[in-house]
């Protein structure tokens, strides 16, 4: 009888543990208003609303040493099961802390590799929908000149821009894709001015890796492509579509692995690509009727080829010329 009671209570205890949502913390170097970290934040908020995790975060940590301090404080005082974040600019600090807390799963956006036993990496691998956007842009451009305004020529940006160029040049072998870097993640006024300069240099379709470009396209009555999130709402007649990143597949996978006790350090790249729902082309919001049927069909069949693995979009992280 006593044995049974112990068994029963421990079973109840285990059940209670299982129902306790996973404790998740996130540490962001930039404000969550920056689109990159915003995508991670949204996915974690969604998991919290679904009752899967309890979520807390710290943002605008910056690149001057605070990341390591905050991670250690959180690990010591809150002991979350998982810490998400972005390691760009803080790569060494994040790896140092992760090594000291092997019982916590560290899941960070990073341009480098995973680190045993507990640091997994992810990134916005949205080059596939960027390629599809380029394909569409190449077809929509009458002048054959397309403008791209981007933040910094870092690998994750280069990858997206290069894939966009591959798509544009597949549609039009002579397409001239002009790329301008504004050297900031937050300067919509400069981005708009850079886009206007491209329009004056002949561009008639614009790809907005940063905010501000869509305003220029709207002013000039041109088509534009958004990036990172569905930006059609900013200018419904201007924004055709654009590559979108979804962190939900990564978050769900990590929750499952940690809860199941099978978490291990790994590169989570696939979970941010199209096949697993980590990337997509933004909805066309009515453009499917205004664009030619052939074009939409071609786009959809190309999308299908990517989803079924028949076509692999090349990955090129060199700075575009």
């Amino acid at each position, binding site marked *: 009888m006593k044995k049974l009671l112990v068994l029963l209570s421990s079973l109840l205890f285990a059940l209670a543990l299982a129902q306790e949502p996973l404790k998740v913390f996130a540490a962001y170097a930039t404000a969550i208003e920056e689109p990159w970290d915003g995508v991670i934040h949204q996915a974690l908020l969604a998991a919290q609303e679904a009752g899967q995790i309890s979520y807390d975060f710290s943002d605008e940590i910056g690149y001057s040493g605070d990341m390591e301090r905050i991670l250690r404080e959180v690990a010591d005082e809150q002991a979350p099961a998982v810490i998400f974040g972005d390691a760009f600019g803080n790569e060494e600090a994040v790896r140092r802390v992760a090594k000291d807390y092997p019982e916590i799963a560290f899941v960070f956006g990073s341009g480098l590799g995973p680190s045993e036993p507990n640091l997994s990496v992810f990134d916005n691998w949205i080059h596939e929908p960027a390629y599809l956007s380029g394909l569409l842009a190449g077809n929509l451009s009458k002048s054959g000149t397309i403008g791209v305004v981007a933040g910094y020529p870092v690998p994750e940006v280069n990858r997206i821009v290069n894939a966009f160029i591959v798509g544009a040049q597949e549609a039009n072998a002579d397409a001239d894709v002009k790329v301008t*870097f504004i050297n900031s993640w937050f*300067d919509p*006024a400069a981005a708009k001015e850079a886009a206007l300069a491209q329009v*004056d240099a002949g561009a008639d379709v614009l790809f907005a890796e940063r905010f501000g470009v869509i305003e220029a396209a709207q002013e000039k009555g041109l088509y534009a492509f958004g990036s990172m*999130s569905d930006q059609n*709402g*900013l200018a419904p007649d201007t924004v055709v579509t654009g590559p979108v990143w979804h962190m939900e597949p990564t978050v769900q996978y990590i929750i499952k692995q940690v809860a199941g006790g099978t978490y291990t350090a790994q590169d989570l790249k696939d979970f941010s690509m199209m096949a697993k729902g980590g990337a997509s082309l933004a909805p066309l919001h009515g453009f499917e009727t205004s664009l030619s049927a052939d074009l939409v069909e071609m786009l959809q069949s190309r999308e299908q080829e990517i989803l079924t693995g028949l076509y692999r979009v090349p990955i090129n992280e060199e700075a575009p010329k």
Partner: protein
Amino acid sequence: MDFVIALLGATLRIFTPILLAALGETLIERAGILNLGIEGTMLLSAFSGFVVAQLSGSLWLGLSAALLTGILLCVFMGLLSVTLGLNQHVAGLGITLLASGLALFSFRILYGGSSTPPSLERSFAQLALFKGTALEPIFSQYGITYIALLLVPILGWLLMHTSFGLRLRSVGENPEAADIAGLNVYWVRYQALIVGGALMGLAGAYLSLAQLGAFTHGMVNGRGWVAIAIVIFGNWQPSKVFYGALLFGFLQALQLRLQAQGIPLPYEALLALPYIITIIILALAGRNASYPAALLKAYRREGA
């Protein structure tokens, strides 16, 4: 030729917020106060202008809110550095941190959770002068740009040829003498802060209500700091400040347009161009810099 015309048009668009902020800072520094709150003041003004314009549907109300925000923050700077006589560097940086934090905090309360920045249905329209002539692309500017251009001679005259200007300069050069002459040093400094704050508010409003019609986090992006450098560059004279802002705007427009032309230079070199040339000119002109003598010095009445 088209390239040059379009380049000059872009120059005026880029230089407007920097010119306005630099003119405001010039007045305040001439009265003896270095206002490092400029960057945050511009951001919070851009934000409050945007919010009021969006909620009320009136761009003019938004513009008024931006001006008021600029004035209030500069009056707060006055409270800290004039009335309380605190260190101006600390007070100014504190205001920039406070204002930036307030802007982000309120932004989250009002617009948190949106994956795209909020934008206005309509922003200030451009006003084309010289219609139908080759000059039209240069002078298709937002109204605030024309105001900024008019303010250059007006402020120059105000500062150098009116008794208001004389009082303002005297409290910035020698507040003790000004006090002996019967001036209320504190009040004159507050007046400079109020006018300068309105100009900084206008600079912020230009970004959110005219140029973009949207607000994003961090959108001032260092323009306030550039304005401070340009005040030194312009030797605290509105006309020279104008040339400094014009040069910086021109180089910024030029590098963006050279990038778009695809000239075979590394983009880093182009991006650095405005800063390198500004530093070179500053190094040359800076040797003759004539700081307002009482800059950074809090005035304390003896016995008070």
